[in-house]
């Protein structure tokens, strides 16, 4: 459990970071933020980056701000920053309820929101939130400048994203949810803090007692998190109640094509997807 040799770089500005990435990305250079996934992977020598570009000293990346109706989360912002609501509306509340499920406290004070998005573990809570809310990922590199990538195009597979070599995921933007938006989250893991077997995020608004602006995303179950229009459709224009939530859960169960691994079978995971969609909706409704 000792990493292979690597060269360590510690820039202090975004410009310097992009310079270093431009220089070393093709030579197996990687961004080091919280290091909560990367460093253990290096200890097992499953990852052997030759260069690490540590962005912890780039203070301009450490900000959360609201701009043009969006919550902009910089690449240095830790998970624990969301434990108290970062904004007064439903979004701040949702993020605060989700963050409790991310690993354990020592990991939450070190790991970063954008690091989780860039790492794109299928069971990442933030990735599921990003998919559910149609987040925008702001990528930047010296060569191609700044790109804004929508969530549905960003997550491509297990730990695979649309980021190019040499690009820094500078920030992630989440839409501020209007007042009155109902938002809920549920996940199932065998122990508190473990990678979830499946999770669901649900948000909706009520118009004359009927659900609208319906967003349901599932994480952990498939190679990448995504919204499930099949489940969303069953709910639009209906009043929220347990019966219709069950129908949505059933639709979600049918719609997913779960990961089948030796320890968790696809069929079992499908059942968990159903249960988590129902629980996320119940939590949103309560």
């Amino acid at each position, binding site marked *: 459990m000792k990493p292979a040799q690597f060269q360590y770089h510690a820039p202090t500005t975004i410009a310097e970071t992009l310079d270093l990435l431009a220089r070393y990305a093709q030579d197996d250079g990687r961004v080091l933020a919280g290091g909560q996934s990367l460093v253990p992977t290096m200890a097992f020598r499953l990852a052997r980056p030759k260069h690490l570009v540590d962005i912890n000293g780039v203070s301009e990346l450490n900000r959360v701000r609201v701009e043009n109706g969006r919550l902009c989360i910089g690449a240095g912002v830790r998970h624990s920053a969301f434990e108290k609501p970062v904004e007064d509306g439903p979004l701040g509340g949702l993020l605060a309820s989700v963050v409790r499920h991310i690993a354990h406290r020592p990991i939450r004070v070190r790991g970063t929101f954008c690091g989780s998005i860039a790492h794109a573990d299928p069971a990442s809570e933030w990735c599921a939130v990003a998919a559910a809310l149609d987040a925008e990922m702001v990528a930047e590199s010296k060569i191609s400048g700044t790109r804004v990538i929508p969530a549905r195009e960003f997550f491509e597979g297990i730990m695979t994203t649309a980021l190019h070599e040499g690009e820094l995921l500078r920030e992630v933007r989440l839409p501020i949810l209007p007042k009155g938006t109902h938002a809920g989250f549920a996940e*199932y893991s065998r*122990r*508190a*803090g*473990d990678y979830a077997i499946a999770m669901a995020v649900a948000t909706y608004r009520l118009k004359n007692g009927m659900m609208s602006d319906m967003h349901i995303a599932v994480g952990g179950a498939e190679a990448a998190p995504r919204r499930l229009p099949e489940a969303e459709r069953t709910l639009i224009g209906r009043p929220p109640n347990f019966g219709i939530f069950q129908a949505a859960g059933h639709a979600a169960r049918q719609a997913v094509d779960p990961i089948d691994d030796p320890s968790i079978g696809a069929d*079992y995971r499908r059942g968990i997807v159903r*249960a988590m969609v129902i629980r996320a909706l119940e939590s949103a409704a309560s």
Partner: protein
Amino acid sequence: MNEQSGGTKWIGMPVERLEDPPLVTGRGRFAGDINFPRQLHMRTDAARALPGVVAVWTAADITDVPPIDFREGPIEKLAPYRQPVLAIDRLRYVGEPVAAVFAHDPYVAEDAADLVTMEVEELPVLLDARDEPGEFSFGRDTEATILTQGYGDVEAVFKSAAHVVELKLTSGRHSGVPLECRGAIGRYDASRDVLELHGAAKVPHRNKELIARMLKRAPASVQCYESHVGGGFGIRGEIYPEDILVCVAAIRFERPVKWIEDRREHLIAANHSRNQHHHIKAACTDEGEILAIDDVIHHDNGAYVRTHATRVAMMTCGVLPGPYRVPGAYRAICHFRLTNKTPAATYRAPGRFETTFVRERLVDAIAHQLRLDPIHVRRLNAVRVDEMPFKRPLEALGEEIHFDSGDYHALLDITLNHVDWQNLNKELAARREQGEMVGVGLAMFVEKAGLGPADGVRIQVDTSGEIEVITGGASIGQGFETVMAQVAAECIGADMTKMRVTHGNTERIEHGIGAHASRATVMTASATRVAALKVREKALDIAAELMQSPVDTLDIVNGEVVIADRPGGPSMTLGAIAAALGPSSKARGDREPGLSAEGWFYTDHQVYPYGNHLAVVQVDPDTGGVKVLRYVVGYDIGRAINPTLVKGQIAGGFAQGLGGALMEEFTYNERGDPLAVTFADYLMPTVRETPDLEIILREDYPSPLNPLGIKGAGESGVNAVGAAIASAIDDAIGIPGAITVLPVTPQRLKAIIDGKR
């Protein structure tokens, strides 16, 4: 039962641990903290020359080193199945050491180990001990031996029995996972021709003998040194290939050689345990009396037979009947088989966690099949207090089983009353009516502890009055020093905080039993008592002369000899008495020099503490997840030297049992690759999954086999967890006998629940 008259009472008091100050102030010294000048670092791997690499060894480089031998001595029949220190010709499990790299720096050693390449032809693997045995080596198959224990005419009893109840059950593969991984530092002192092994644990004296035997050295030229040990649980401290490698390398290079295990290695290299398949039958009367048991066991021992030989399997055969009488006949046939998995051996409550699960499942099944109350069936079959001592023609650790004392029925009542059994069942039934899946389960068990035949302790008092208790025991974190200090202090009449307890150092004392099989308190504390009483007698004898007062007027209070009925009268400290007994002291007369004594304790039989576990669980029908709502352990320990430490032992064992019941499992894919190699895959319960534990600690039946009445604490918390939780889950989901496999993972349980619907 105070051991002396006027002094402070220490035995039975929940005093704080003596060993904690260094541990909680960062002054502990674990294997990783031990360093010597010029040391080399070893990695084992499955190298080419890199700068800094001193040597790379394969089996061809150590042909003079025999396979790892059995701890209790040679066993001809099993010898071919021993593990070579480095693999020869055939690799039998993933994790088997193939090459060893020695380098100046641990990073370089790891880089070099990375470069080791192997040409390996992949062979079919054998992963299930129930499958037909395959070839182990020419002329030998993977069924290393068949073990049996039993009595009576099994066929005859079954033939005439009113009912036969039959079950197939499996206990999964899990193990003790200490916080501190293994570590070994070999050092050879050429000036004295002494080989030293630092980082020894559990059984340093046995390991000294074993290393000497394997390396053909005189035992006096091998010394083992225990440092702080971050958990043992039976798996840590056995001799493994790495321990031998650092010793051999230290002699060859004449340089210290250090090896520290990482967690991934630990999970694939250190002993696994528990993996057994039972096909068990009981012959019963209409009333539910168990007349006979017939069990066929397939014991999965992994790839080799390690230091314990067949100990777990043999124990399994002997202890299975537990607290029940089984008067007619009994037979256990154990197919001791090797598979292509990590070798297996003892883990806390070896053979008992497994058999309590099997036996208590069987009792539940009998009750269900005969439509009887499971508590009633347990009462009917349990050995009664008037049958004690109860002898059974079966053996555990080579001794015939003699339950020394106890009232199993009374303790059962105590536990049932504690939870208000009738009302608890009513409440749970009412909750089930409302759609909740909640249930309760109970399991009874008998533990065993205090394996003899002998242990010795030396106590010496220096001229400052500090008392050193020198033992051949070992401390694996259980509070060994505190317990020995309590016993010595009370028996002498001293202050226990002024004690120094020495353990795990073969240079300080000739013999030692270490810390295993819940022996330390029974054996070593009993020997400590003998030595302490001798020191007291010696001190009083010379004090009577020096203080000019007859012995029977004297007492020792807090390390001072006083005249009992004259408070404020003359006194002498133990330090002054030690000085008076010095070799050149005139006051000594013709007494033997030194205020010191050696004490031995002998016993012919182990002691058998007993208890019961009760679990209340809730099952989530959507996920198959199990939450333990309440857990009760009732346990009669005979005599608790330190109740706080006993409860700590029970609580820690319970958490490990909970892991084995619900989470922990070493799994393999179809090619034999281990799938649980990190803490992300090998799930141990954390504080969030572990409920508060209710412990009913009783001292109703002190053991008649030792003067303090001690029965042993180490393995009672883990013993019946699988059994109690399985029974509670059955109750919660309303399917009697549903649980046949441990651990009960959510996925397995969900399939069971869905199958019902």
